């Protein structure tokens, strides 16, 4: 594998409020190889979005990176430490080198500007193309994201487009400057299932054609199976299991991962078999249990689970943060 495009090492992020501070990310490490897709999976509040916002430098004012490093390999090969980068420097790489698409295609576009203008603004910010060249490039992008009758859509306003079309426009907007890294924060959650499949197909095809790396944030294991090369499962601000997608689905070795997989229907299951939900809820960040954060909800938990647990290699390329890995995996 070539050098990773993005490497996050031991990232810790704290959020301060007036009286206390909570740790939203604890010692999170992952790396995203060139041209690969890494899925960050987890429930709401597990720290997926905080991870992506830290990478983009868009943490809210009360959030602070208190430890670790985020290293991005630029298109020209140079390494860039993203934590501690000035806002000005960030602006130059956002959109140009790393882009992001969001969950709500319905409200992620400015209602007062045409689609063409909004995509064109990106080129105005990050290239020296003149107006005619920009328009040509925008048209090219709209065709690339398979918008029918692209030429007549240039002057459409967002409200004239359907949700799926708007998400295609968002993708065009994010990719018009050929970024090396695309962060997709639940890009299909707000869409119909059929449209979801189209958008995922589109993203896979574009990744293939443009050679970008994708950090895919989702809570949907089905989408993970569809999209990801590598998977990192997050729980309560830490990564509890990370492996290649094939390995993870074949040998889920953390109780939480197994719980996630058991709680969704899969073809080939015995029709009478009930889905198994994970009991309880994610602990509040300000009231973390000692030791393994998942222990209170875990059927395998024992005495040793009260001690701090770290991510360790279970076998090559498959890391798990659990004392009971062997029992869990053996039970598969």
């Amino acid at each position: 594998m070539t050098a990773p495009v993005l490497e996050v090492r031991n990232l810790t992020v704290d959020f301060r409020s007036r009286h206390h501070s909570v740790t939203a990310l604890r010692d999170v490490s992952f790396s995203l190889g060139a041209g690969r897709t890494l899925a960050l999976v987890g429930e709401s509040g597990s720290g997926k979005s905080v991870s992506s916002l830290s990478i983009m430098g868009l943490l809210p004012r009360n959030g602070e990176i208190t430890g670790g490093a985020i290293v991005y390999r630029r298109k020209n090969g140079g390494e860039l430490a993203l934590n501690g980068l000035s806002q000005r420097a960030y602006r130059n790489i956002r959109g140009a080198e790393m882009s992001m698409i969001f969950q709500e295609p319905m409200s992620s576009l400015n209602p007062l500007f045409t689609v063409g203008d909004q995509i064109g603004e990106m080129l105005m910010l990050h290239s020296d193309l003149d107006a005619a060249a920009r328009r040509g490039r925008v048209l090219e992008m709209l065709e690339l994201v398979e918008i029918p009758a692209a030429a007549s859509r240039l002057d459409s306003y967002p409200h004239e487009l359907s949700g799926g079309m708007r998400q295609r426009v968002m993708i065009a907007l994010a990719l018009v400057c050929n970024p090396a890294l695309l962060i997709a924060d639940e890009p299909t959650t707000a869409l119909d299932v059929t449209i979801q499949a189209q958008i995922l197909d589109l993203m896979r095809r574009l990744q293939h054609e443009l050679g970008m790396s994708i950090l895919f944030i989702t809570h949907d294991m089905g989408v993970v199976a569809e999209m990801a090369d590598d998977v990192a499962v997050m729980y309560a601000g830490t990564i509890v299991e990370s492996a290649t997608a094939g390995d993870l689905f074949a040998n889920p070795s953390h109780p939480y991962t197994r719980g996630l997989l058991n709680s969704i229907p899969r073809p080939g299951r015995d029709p009478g078999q009930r889905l198994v939900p994970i009991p309880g809820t994610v602990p509040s960040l300000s009231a973390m249990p000692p030791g393994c954060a998942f222990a209170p909800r875990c059927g395998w938990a024992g005495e040793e689970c009260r001690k701090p647990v770290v991510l360790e290699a279970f076998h090559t390329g498959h890391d798990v943060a659990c004392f009971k890995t062997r029992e869990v995996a053996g039970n598969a």
Partner: protein
Amino acid sequence: MAGTSFAGEPKFLDLLFSRRAVPVALAIFVLILTLCVFAGFIAPSDPDRMSVRSRLTPPGADFWLGADAFGRDVLSRLLYAGRVSLGIGLGVALISSVIGIAIGLSAGFFKRLDGALSRLIDAMMAFPDILLAIALVSILGGSMVNVIIALSIVYAPRIARIVRASTLVIRELPYVEAARALGSSTLSIMFNHVLRNILSPIIVQGTFIFAYAMLAEAGLSFLGVGVDPSTPTWGTMINEGRQYIDQAAFLIFIPGIAISVSVLSLQLIGDGLRDAMDPRLAKEL
């Protein structure tokens, strides 16, 4: 839908005029403005010429809109007064909007400035409008320009408060976050993404301020701190006519109608502008 795209972008003016009241209101407002600007050529007589014999003459052949308590021609005074009143109204509406937008956007956008600026807005709004205006005019001295400056300062907090509130809402919308994630600068976000989306309430408030300013100017003149009292304004004409309301009610109705008609037409124009600038509404017209 697609039809408009093929026919080219719908023209701004077409959109503006597709609301039927707008061309009428625009015509009326331009007519009033023209009549007042060219008062020197149009007015039938000198607005200051007095004639005791014709005092309080009702509208008729000699005096189309009657004569006031000093026998001065109301029509001529109305036209000359319009220059000052409209000038003050428009000037205050524009300047207070600019100041209000600057303060409101900064307060809404930069958390660090918000506390100080919001307290300043609250403090200024706690003063009765007219009292603050009197204080400012007394400091600056009485002239039309100073009255405009003073009233602009008085009304700017109203705009600022609306702009701040709207900015706080728009700032958190996903498309603003998306613009930031895709590399837009703070200034571009402030003006392209936030200001453009809060123009409607600003325009509506601006037309209100236009009306308030004309009335406040009358109050200032009445209290002797406004424009030079010998200069007629619509507000002072109403004030002077007040004493004769039982004998010659037209003295207050005529300038009153002038104020109402210009405010109404400006508000209709403002509504039209607001709709024409919003592509979502424009489609339905």
